[in-house]
């Protein structure tokens, strides 16, 4: 190298560095490892800054909302009082319908089994440094019991799954990523098909035959077949249906606000979850989230037999 002209030296260096990285890629593919050590170092270095940034932005936003953005408060207050009255009326109607449903279920000797799933609430503190992938970082990790392949949800629906866990943070592959997927089915017709991302805000549902009846507005829920998410969690709403060659082309809008995530729930189990029996989809299966960082021992749904007289 020393005897080479400067121009050739840099060319050799370029070839050497590129070749080294190609070999590194080959080793990762062969061993199915993803260079964990360098990732741990980088994430450990960056995540405290992200955590501080998220905390700072949260404080600034809270201050803005609570002290400065109050110009519309009086009008909003009147609207909310009106809305509150309407909602109370609706709640009474729903309670009446709920009681009727309970009685019918009791008559049919229908027992709803509910999985006991430990979970932890986590805050989104960062995103992927790669613009082509939909990945976020959470502020909880191995210390809170989060492991690879655990499901991540919000009360609105499925968000993604954990693909890497570090001491105090973890990496979550969002449902909108090209490599993402969840076992799903159409809530009404119970037609199964995996739902995955395309690197865009909308998802795609695959392998639904042209002869199946699918309508725009149909709800998609988890099927439980992927052994990551419990059955009947909301995944999304069908927004577009087109006939394809062999299968329909179905686009789905995610139920969880994946583009505006702030807090999520991590299901703390990688074991296959106990499936519910075919009960009517509850919609928000995850119920209200607990206080930040506190593990929740089980879902807050009633145990079988408690609710039905």
């Amino acid at each position, binding site marked *: 190298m020393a005897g080479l002209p400067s*121009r050739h*030296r*840099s*060319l050799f*260096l*370029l070839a050497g*560095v*590129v070749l080294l*990285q*190609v070999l*590194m*890629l*080959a080793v*990762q*593919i062969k061993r199915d490892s*993803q*260079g964990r050590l*360098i*990732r741990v*170092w*980088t*994430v450990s270095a*960056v995540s405290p*800054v*992200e955590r501080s*940034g*998220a905390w700072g*932005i949260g404080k600034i936003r809270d201050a803005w909302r609570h002290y400065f953005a109050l110009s519309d408060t009086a009008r909003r207050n009147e609207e909310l009082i009106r809305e509150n009255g309407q909602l109370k009326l609706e709640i009474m109607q729903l309670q009446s319908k709920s009681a009727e449903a309970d009685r019918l279920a009791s008559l049919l000797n229908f027992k709803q089994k509910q999985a006991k799933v430990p979970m932890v609430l986590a805050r*989104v*503190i*960062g*995103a*992927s*440094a*790669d*613009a*082509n*992938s939909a*990945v*976020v*970082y959470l502020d909880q990790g191995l210390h809170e019991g989060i492991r690879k392949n655990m499901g991540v949800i919000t009360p609105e629906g499925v968000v993604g799954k954990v*693909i*890497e866990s570090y001491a105090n943070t973890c*990496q979550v*592959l969002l449902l909108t*990523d090209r*490599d993402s997927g969840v076992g799903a089915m159409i809530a009404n017709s119970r037609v199964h098909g995996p739902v995955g991302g395309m690197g865009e805000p909308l998802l795609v549902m695959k392998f639904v035959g042209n002869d199946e009846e699918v309508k725009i507005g149909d709800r998609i829920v988890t099927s439980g077949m992927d052994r990551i998410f419990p059955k009947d969690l909301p995944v999304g709403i069908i927004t577009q249906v087109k006939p394809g060659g062999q299968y329909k082309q179905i686009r789905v809008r995610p139920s969880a606000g994946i*583009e*505006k*995530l702030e807090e999520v729930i991590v299901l703390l189990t990688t074991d296959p979850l106990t499936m519910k029996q075919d009960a009517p989809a509850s919609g928000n299966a995850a119920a209200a989230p607990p206080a930040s960082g506190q593990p929740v021992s089980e879902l807050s749904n009633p145990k079988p037999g408690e609710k039905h007289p």
Partner: protein
Amino acid sequence: MNDTFDLRISESHIEVHKFHGGTILLCVILALILQAFLPVYITKASILDLPLLITIYFGLSRRNPSTGLLLGTFIGLLQDSLSKTPIGLFGIAKTVIGYLASSIGARLDTEHPLARFALTAAFFALHQGIVVLVQKLLLAQPQPWFTMRLLVACIFNAILGVFLYHFLDRLRKS
């Protein structure tokens, strides 16, 4: 990192410029943190590629292919380690961009905003091309060569690059 470099205005005249100590390292770290942090609060910010802009700027400024490509490698590998991609994907792409940027910087006037816009757009497209090529050939992950989103990202990053480079110029020691 050596923060001294030659600024060759013409073949016969060379001016020496310096950056303040640690400027390059600080810019690299800041770019990576912002790249990972901004999209959480501003969804559209995911089309930015700040590490690429930093690679291009310091590549064009340094005008030394060896340091340009090594800086590209360093930034690319750090970006890989903050992504879900295998380590080396962005490393390879940014190594090549760092090398080309510093080679071109030694031959062309890259101070004019229009030249910077055109070069950034070209390097963005090339970077994307290398990433897709590596994904197709080495990782067997089919990716589209061209999408409207990429075109928008290319133009947006080139515009941002012009303003960012202008700001970074101020960090040079006179």
